[in-house]
């Protein structure tokens, strides 16, 4: 029985029918690429090409082309890595954690958010390969006898944990995303007119027929995959934070890191989802699917995680003082007032103050403002990692080794490479795959839709038919 609480707005606006959903989403996949898409794709290819040249030179010449020095041995590369991995977390949060919490609004955005996760993790992984300097040796990070002698990788090291965490996270996210795509690929396959698309979508839909048995198993494995992905996503950023926390560098050696990093990851990830969805929504005219309600809900998550991050910053600072360890205290004092004060205050402004503006309902529901704050949050989160990494390192224990870090054109170029890669992949996704999960939207459509005039559409429908009480509990999802 469909019963919708009358106080809630329908999730999908515009009185859509099932056929409308198919039509609205498939239209963009089936139509020829638009001019705007071609321009955007061309631009990202140019950015990618520039980045690739910088990257090629980085590998050819060696990591000496970066601005690293003896004191600051980790800088932009690791900053970018943590930043991208963090962004990836929002997709899994939306698709897995919100599934477990039965948040139906996620159905309109989960497909694109998961795609974003996968592309962000690819970008993050590219920084791991970059910082190896010799990417052809990357397989040495796998549990092989070292250099094929008898010495193995060190399983006690968080850096090795990271190898397992990131690769598991990437492959499980990819599988989760692909399983969700199969029913929609089948829809496109059944509508396809050209031979090529019939073959391609048909192959990737793998003979999906939508039988009740298949759907029952599909739902079951979606639930288990969500249950697996939830601790997985938390473990990934926990392990990333342990790359720092298990070291003895003042400013890194703190037990608060895992929850603080996870909250920060979700915070920046949601901001990136907002950026992408606000553009996609306008370009693809998906205003009925991604409504102001969705945007507002995501802004609430941003405010919540932003507040967690803010509390973590303050706690960290308090403990640095209260702990009474002068090196620890100096590391934090130096962040705030040292030569990198601007990075620290940029981080504080962007991450602690800006999300608090969303307490105003008007701002929370303003699309322009949301977009602006999302960009600000992502800048802030990049600075957070920069502050943690560079300002903790640059003042070494001996003042004679104090140094500053300034990025070279290759530091910047390699960062630009990741943007080129990300947007190229995202644009390909948004053109050739359905950006909204049609099957899941159809499943929540009726229980929340405006197909019937009353907001209590579900109740009205049952009464109207005069049916006996249904024998099956059909609470969707």
């Amino acid at each position, binding site marked *: 029985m469909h019963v919708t609480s009358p106080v809630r707005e329908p999730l999908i606006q515009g009185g859509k029918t099932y056929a409308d959903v198919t039509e609205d989403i498939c239209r963009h996949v089936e139509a020829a690429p638009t001019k705007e898409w071609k321009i955007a794709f061309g631009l990202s290819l140019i950015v990618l090409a520039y980045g690739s040249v910088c990257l090629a030179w980085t590998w050819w010449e060696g990591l000496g082309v970066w601005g690293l020095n003896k004191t600051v041995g980790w800088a932009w590369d690791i900053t970018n890595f943590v930043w991208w991995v963090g962004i990836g977390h929002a997709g899994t949060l939306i698709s897995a954690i919100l599934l477990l919490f039965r948040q139906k609004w996620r159905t309109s955005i989960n497909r694109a958010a998961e795609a974003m996760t996968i592309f962000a993790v690819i970008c993050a992984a590219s920084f791991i390969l970059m910082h190896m300097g010799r990417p052809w040796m990357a397989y040495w990070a796998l549990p092989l006898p070292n250099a094929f002698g008898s010495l193995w990788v060190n399983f006690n090291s968080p850096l090795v944990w990271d190898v397992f965490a990131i690769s598991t996270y990437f492959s499980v996210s990819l599988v989760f995303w692909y399983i969700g795509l199969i029913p929609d690929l*089948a829809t496109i396959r059944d509508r396809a007119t050209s031979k090529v698309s019939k073959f391609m979508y048909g192959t990737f839909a793998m003979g999906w027929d939508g039988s009740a048995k298949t759907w029952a198993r599909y739902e079951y494995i979606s639930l288990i995959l969500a249950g697996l992905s939830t601790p997985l996503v938390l473990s990934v950023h926990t392990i990333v934070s342990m790359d720092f926390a298990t070291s003895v560098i003042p400013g890194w050696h703190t037990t608060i890191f895992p929850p603080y990093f996870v909250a920060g990851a979700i915070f920046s990830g949601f901001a990136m989802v907002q950026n992408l969805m606000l553009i996609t929504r306008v370009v693809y005219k998906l205003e009925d699917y991604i409504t102001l309600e969705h945007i507002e809900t995501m802004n609430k998550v941003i405010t919540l995680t932003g507040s967690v991050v803010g509390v973590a910053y303050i706690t960290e600072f308090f403990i640095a003082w209260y702990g009474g360890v002068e090196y620890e205290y100096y590391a934090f004092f130096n962040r705030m007032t040292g030569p990198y004060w601007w990075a620290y205050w940029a981080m504080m402004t962007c991450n602690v103050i800006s999300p608090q503006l969303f307490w105003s309902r008007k701002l929370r529901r303003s699309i322009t403002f949301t977009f602006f704050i999302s960009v600000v949050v992502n800048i802030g989160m990049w600075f957070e990692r920069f502050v943690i990494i560079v300002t903790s390192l640059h003042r070494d224990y001996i003042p004679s080794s104090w140094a500053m870090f300034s990025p070279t054109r290759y530091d910047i170029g390699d960062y630009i490479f990741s943007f080129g890669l990300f947007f190229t992949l995202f644009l390909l996704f948004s053109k050739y795959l359905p950006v909204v999960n049609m099957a899941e939207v159809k499943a929540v459509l009726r229980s929340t839709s405006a197909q019937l005039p009353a907001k209590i559409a579900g109740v009205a429908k049952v009464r109207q038919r005069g049916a006996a009480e249904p024998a099956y509990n059909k609470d969707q999802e």
Partner: protein
Amino acid sequence: MAELSGKYLVGVYDDDDTVLHAVPKLRKAGVKIKEVYSPFPIHGLDEALGHPRTRIGIAAFMFGVTGCCCVLTLMIWTMGYDWPMIIGGKDPISIPNYIPITFEGTVLFTAFGMVITFLISNGLGPGTHFHPRFDVRATDNKFIMAIEVSRNSMSEEEISRALKDSGAEEVNIKQF
């Protein structure tokens, strides 16, 4: 989907509620339903059709246990026996340090094992897309009920009438 053969009556419904209510009605009338195809999951439909509960969860658990054991064995053997090393003054076999990778390995094995089981048990895979289906609208907006004529004791007309009575908007005959 497996290959189909024989003669089928195909009822087309345009509403998930209708089809869900039609299933017990038809079964009570003695119609043997082969399967119902829908564009999205309908809760309670598989129970209504009398499908047994999926056992994929058991498979998933087994894969998880396998993954956990494999990864833990790898670490204990390499770090403790093949080339023992004392790192950070800890015992060569220090289980707390192995927890993260054990967890990741468990998740990896479970996810992949379960998904492969899912694909195999549903007959999904590359090269199956040319298999015939009852009605392609099942992936768009229609709910398709297939009834194999030879497996029913009722006549075609009777089944057809029962389908119409239960709310089907069309009844087609499909011969493979």
